[in-house]
């Protein structure tokens, strides 16, 4: 591990703080797309910078990067497999009557409606 000594850590840190400011400023434009990019795009960049410059993942043996990527890929798999029925309020031949603007008070009432509902899915 030698190259790391050429990294100017303070500079990296300054960059991270700068990006932090951007992500905080993002929502002030009140544009959803901008917010998403500034929030999560920048989070990704920041995470990469920390991993590369502070954790030295690029200097460590290659398999470390593989290990981490595998973990992340499996999480994407999990999301892809679970989202179609956990995230959706309605799917093929099923729907969740209680899932419109759920709040604690309304929930019971909505579930009752769910149980004696007027057919909402039409096939």
């Amino acid at each position, binding site marked *: 591990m030698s190259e790391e000594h050429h990294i100017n850590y303070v500079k990296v840190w300054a960059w991270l703080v700068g990006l932090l400011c951007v992500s905080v400023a993002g929502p002030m434009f009140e544009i959803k797309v901008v917010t998403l990019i500034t929030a999560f795009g920048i989070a990704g960049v920041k995470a990469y910078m920390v991993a590369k410059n502070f954790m030295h993942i690029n200097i460590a043996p290659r398999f470390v990067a593989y290990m981490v990527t595998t973990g992340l890929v499996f999480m994407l798999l999990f999301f892809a497999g679970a989202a179609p029925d956990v995230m959706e309020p309605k799917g*093929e*031949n*099923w*729907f*969740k*009557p*209680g*899932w419109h603007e759920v709040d604690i008070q309304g929930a019971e009432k909505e*579930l*009752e409606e*769910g*149980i*004696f*509902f*007027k*057919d909402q*899915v039409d*096939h």
Partner: protein
Amino acid sequence: MIESLVPAASTYAGDIDDLFTLIFVLVGFWFVLSEAIFFWLILRFRKKPGVAGQHITGEKKEEKRWITWPHLLVLVCDVFIIVGAVTVWYDIKQHLPPAQETVRIVSQQWAWTFVHPGPDGELDTPDDVTKMNELHVKVGTLYHYKLESKDVLHDFSVPVFRLKQDSIPGRVITGWFEPTMTGEWDIQCAEICGIGHALMGARIFIETPEQHAAWLAEHGAVSVAALTPPAVEE
């Protein structure tokens, strides 16, 4: 094969039994073959005085093909099974043929509530007939069921239909079946639902249209009162 154990009383019971036979034949072939070779090798290569084992790495191509070819053939069989499984699944669970009548099935700890459409054939009308643990259907009629649960997971299972569907609280699940022969059989709860899981048996009565009409006439009047939600709650 399954039919010799349980009668097949729905339009798609036959498909499932055929799929079973298909898989049984394909898989059975490989099973018998490999077990036969396996035991033959054990007998053939028992330790004999003066006969040493051979040094085979299995890394050479001509050796490897002894396992490569079989497993490619297994892959072919898999394709057939996948095609069969996917088509059967699509017909039963995904594709909904238009309904002639619709029943609502509400599961709770530990009983089934079946809401039958009354003589007018429409659900959620005053003449609906609500019954606990008794589902009455007409033979040769295509039913949709609306499956709901009040508390925990249950599973609406009718072995003679080869039908199973979990009921999930907070979801309304629609499915279909079409009875093909008259009779009286079990409805099970096939998802553990607490202490009374074993008590969640119900009966399905598949009747001729005449019998069904008679049954409706008999119970319709009573259950108009019982239709109001509180009555179903109990």
